[in-house]
């Protein structure tokens, strides 16, 4: 018995290693039938998170549309949200082929079980947040999905991200344009932007997850679902964001370390956000403490996703 189980395990292990070797040599998978169960699980988990992140932008951007200052601004936010919903559509469609029911995933699943990120779980307070959301958040998202497009060994997923990244790049550009403009509107406005950047920056830094010394999802790299590690992606984000902030006069807790030739944070991850004051406490905590905060989620997550699953009519509208 034990020997049969061991033999089975060894064959399974061998199939996994064979697939990893094929992928390392540059092979691209086109069909589910080519996958091992473990490859499939890792891929599906990656795609499911990406899909949830896209759909979470509905509650996030909705307020931004409603409080927009002009026709043009309302069009700009609605256009970004249209893109995001298109991305969600593309990703949930792909998951359908893996046996997911996207209607159930979006409209019936308990909001608690959506795998969204902390950065998307706080309501936008004003158009300044819209600009910072694009600059900090879409930038982080773009870096993640660019990596998937360039490296993902599942061909259909990589290809489907072409449209996503083409559009995501516009969101980042829009954010840069908005923040550059606001930062030219005098000291009072600059202070308003700085205050909100103080909130947004650490959210962006932790978008990429735990640091490489503790990260768990190495299977993503073994199977070349993605190409870069958490810290590598975070580094790209810092390389793009920090110089921009310096250029427009925004202070962020990160700098270029000329000795190591990389950007580094001025604090050590992980840190906690005080959910009452919405201020960051820069004292380093443990990863279990951070994970607990992520798991609890931000104030927009449950009400926002619940709104997406209900309908309001008549006097509830106006």
């Amino acid at each position, binding site marked *: 018995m034990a020997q049969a189980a061991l033999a089975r395990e060894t064959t399974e292990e061998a199939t996994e290693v064979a697939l990893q070797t094929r992928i390392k040599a540059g092979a691209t998978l086109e069909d589910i039938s080519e996958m091992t169960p473990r490859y499939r699980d890792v891929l599906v988990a990656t795609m499911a998170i990406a899909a949830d992140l896209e759909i979470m932008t509905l509650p996030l951007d909705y307020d931004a549309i409603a409080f927009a200052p002009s026709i043009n601004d309302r069009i700009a936010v609605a256009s970004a949200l249209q893109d995001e*919903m298109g991305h969600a559509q593309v990703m949930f469609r792909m998951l359908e082929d893996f046996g997911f029911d996207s209607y159930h995933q979006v409209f019936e699943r308990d909001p608690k079980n959506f795998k969204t990120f902390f950065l998307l779980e706080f309501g936008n307070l004003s158009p300044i947040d819209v600009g910072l959301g694009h600059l900090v958040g879409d930038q982080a998202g773009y870096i993640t999905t660019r990596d998937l497009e360039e490296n993902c060994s599942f061909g259909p997923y990589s290809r489907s991200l072409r449209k996503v990244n083409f559009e995501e790049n516009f969101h980042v550009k829009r954010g840069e*344009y908005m923040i550059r403009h606001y930062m030219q509107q005098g000291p009072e406005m600059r202070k308003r932007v700085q205050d909100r950047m103080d909130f947004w920056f650490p959210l962006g830094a932790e978008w990429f997850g735990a640091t490489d010394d503790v990260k768990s999802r190495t299977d993503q790299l073994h199977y070349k679902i993605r190409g870069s590690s958490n810290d590598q992606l975070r580094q790209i984000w810092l390389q793009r964001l920090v110089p921009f902030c310096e250029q427009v006069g925004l202070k962020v807790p990160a700098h270029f370390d000329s000795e190591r030739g990389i950007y580094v944070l001025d604090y050590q991850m992980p840190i906690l956000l005080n959910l009452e004051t919405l201020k960051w406490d820069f004292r380093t905590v443990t990863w279990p403490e951070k994970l607990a905060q992520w798991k609890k989620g931000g104030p927009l997550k449950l009400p926002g996703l619940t709104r997406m699953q209900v309908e309001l009519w008549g006097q509830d509208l106006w």
Partner: protein
Amino acid sequence: MAVVNSIEDLSEADKVLRDELYCIADAKLVLAGWYMMVLQNGRSIADFTSICAMMQGQYGHARALYQHLGRFGVTLDEVEWTRGAKDIRSPKLLDRPPQSWSDFVATIFMAEQAISTQLSAYRTSLADRTLARLADKILKESRFHLSYSVGWIKALRNDPSSAVDEDARRRLVEALDWWGELDQPDVVFASGYRDASDSDLRERFLKAVGETFDVPDGIAGHARSWQRSIRRNGAPGIPENLFEKIRFKNRELAMP
């Protein structure tokens, strides 16, 4: 055409044209607001995408029409900021909030159809070629808005107990308020800006609606106090709470 700064400087025909274009642009502005308000009620991910797109489409068309109205002295400052609920000239059809998804679908069908019908009469205008081109562009872009609502109506009708036809009948009466009092002189038509009269356009609208819904004989709006300048019966303006939801906010943060 020279830009004028005061309504008094306008000819009678231009004044009436200005009013009508304002009504059409405001119809699109408020319809865009409808899409915004209903967005999260969408029933599939593709609905979220489509409603966002139609919202942008309507805001974009409204903006283009307001820009065109610039030649009559209308400014974006007036359009977006200095007006209140009483100054919005959208059709009465859009005052009452949708009561359900089927009522929403029936209403956007009527609204899209009504606005497109009215604009179709500007496509050949020789008196204002820019306006003619703009009308043509808007109509082409609105085609997919109509397929969206027609597609939904078909889908809802698969259910014999669906209320969509009933909703549409109620909304049709509200929609006809836009062509309320047709005995009044139609200066925009007489001066050649439009190639069809308001009464012809009302017929064209009913015919278009008839391709999707049963139109009862002798259906009529009540012409009690219809004013051409706002294309409505009764007091001008839209409900305050609707205006509060769709108005623009955070002015100091508007992007150039």
